[in-house]
């Protein structure tokens, strides 16, 4: 999977905090395995990964991680129900062809899903479009419109709406500033949607839906 944020590692510590020790984790788009390794070292998790690039897979395998070459769009469907406690999609949702299907599959494979993504509602993005009339290019979204892998960008608000549609429950949500730290004040959603450069959500499968 393409790691598209300029500092994709920034959200890893935040994600790792959300994972219960000794759980089973599937990291979709695991890159070079940094998160899986962090989770193995700090949380003693039984981790698995999916990664598109051959180099990424090789890096992971060399680290002793169990990683399969593939991607979220085509390979999640092959995983059995409830195979994992957590399914993680870090900075990849916006690059999937079918984000809704990817999320549905994640919540089928794991009871919980952790998703991080760049927030297209951030004020910097809005400013560029509103005042310069250009497709935004920011630290988080560094590619030009014609060569970006991000084909399904969304705002925090858009994301929350989709989660509600899917019947999942938001256990935890955080907007992250440009340094990857959670914005630590209570604010209504619209403020987060304006101030967060990235967002991290911990979702739990809704009881009625599988």
């Amino acid at each position, binding site marked *: 999977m393409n790691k598209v944020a300029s500092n994709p590692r920034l959200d890893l510590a935040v994600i790792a905090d959300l994972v219960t020790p000794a759980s089973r984790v599937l990291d979709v788009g695991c890159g070079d395995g940094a998160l899986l390794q962090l989770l193995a070292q700090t949380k003693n998790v039984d981790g698995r990964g999916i990664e598109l690039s051959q180099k990424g897979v090789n890096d992971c395998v060399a680290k002793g991680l*169990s990683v*399969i070459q593939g991607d979220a769009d085509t390979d999640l469907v092959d995983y059995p129900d409830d195979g994992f406690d957590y399914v993680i999609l870090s900075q990849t949702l916006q690059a999937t062809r079918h984000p809704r299907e990817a999320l549905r599959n994640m919540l089928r494979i794991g009871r919980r899903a952790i998703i991080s993504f760049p927030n297209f509602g951030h004020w910097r993005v809005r400013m560029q479009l509103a005042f310069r009339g250009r497709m935004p290019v920011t630290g988080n979204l560094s590619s030009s419109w014609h060569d970006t892998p991000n084909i399904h960008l969304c705002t925090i608000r858009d994301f929350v709406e989709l989660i509600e549609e899917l019947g999942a429950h938001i256990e935890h949500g955080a907007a992250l500033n440009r340094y990857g730290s959670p914005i630590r004040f209570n604010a209504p959603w619209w403020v987060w949607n304006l101030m967060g450069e990235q967002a991290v959500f911990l979702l739990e499968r809704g009881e009625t839906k599988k």
Partner: protein
Amino acid sequence: MTNFSQPRQDQASSSPLAGKSVTFTADQALLTDGGGRIAPLTLAYETYGELNNARSNAILLCHALTGDQYAAGVHPVTGKPGWWESMVGPGKPFDTDRYFLICSNVVGGCMGSTGPASANAATNKPYGLDFPVVTIRDMVRAQAMLIDHLGVDTLFCVAGGSMGGMQVLQWAASYPQRVFSAMPIATAAKHSAQNIAFHEVGRQAVMADPDWRSGRYLEQGVRPEKGLAVARMSAHITYLSEAALQRKFGRKLQDRSAPTFSFDADFQIENYLRHQGLAFVERFDANSYLFVTRACDYFDLAADYDGVLARAFKATKTRFCVVAFDSDWLYPTSDSRAIVHALNAGGASVSFVEIQSDKGHDAFLLHEPMFIATTRGFLESAATARGLKK
């Protein structure tokens, strides 16, 4: 090393080949899936490197259809490097300075292990078609006897490509507690209709040769060389990708500037295939070819588990690394993905890489840097988990 009562050491005494072998006598007969009984059973094998004191660094390499026990070093018959020269040796992924490597000729083979060219104890004549039809599982059973004989309880790794990969899968399914890690490469959990079809063409070519003599050619002092060569030629095409053939040969002519308007080998590809066929009959027994191809055809691992491949690997603790090559159309990536799917469903620890190469099925035998890097990484991490010293 406990299980077997004094297998008879038979250090090359009955074989013209230098090398190691062990013979299991009638009380340790190999009972085959097809209801046959093979006794005595000789297994010819090679080892590379040293077994450590903890007996924890043994790797079993499983050879492909027409391979043999000579994975490294110089092959005593052909004078060429061993079949996995790219991977086996000091400092290579299967590091002979670090691991104890075992490679045995499969039962049914023709490089020293008991096969259709061996003497049938009941008749004192070559078995020929009276040799029991063996399966991949029979091959693995025989290998397990050898491993017992060598005093190895748990293999650090079982690795192999193509038919060797089938043996790896069978090992993982039959003896999960004896396999710490497994590398099935360019292989499938079952033979497809297309795979069977190509094998049948090869077998029919052998049987159509008048010198085959219903499989009794050895007693009559002839060999079905033409038939076997044709079988090899057709099979060899399946080991290569079209792109590789095109790049290497195209429509280039062989030592001539114009076509001869005859059936000579005008094209380089014709000359190449004829050479492959001729070189093959020098080292391979025709009946053996029938038996090993048949073993592949019968391979359908899921069939032993109610048709559900995942059950073959249920609760396995083995670490897997599955490798496919994108230009391999004989055992395509989809076959490997089916294996990965089943392993995932069983919650196994599995890695999977599709290596980009235009060299087709044979890529696993060739120098492919990404494949070598993957293997090295997987083995090193497994070695760390196993507590093997550098």
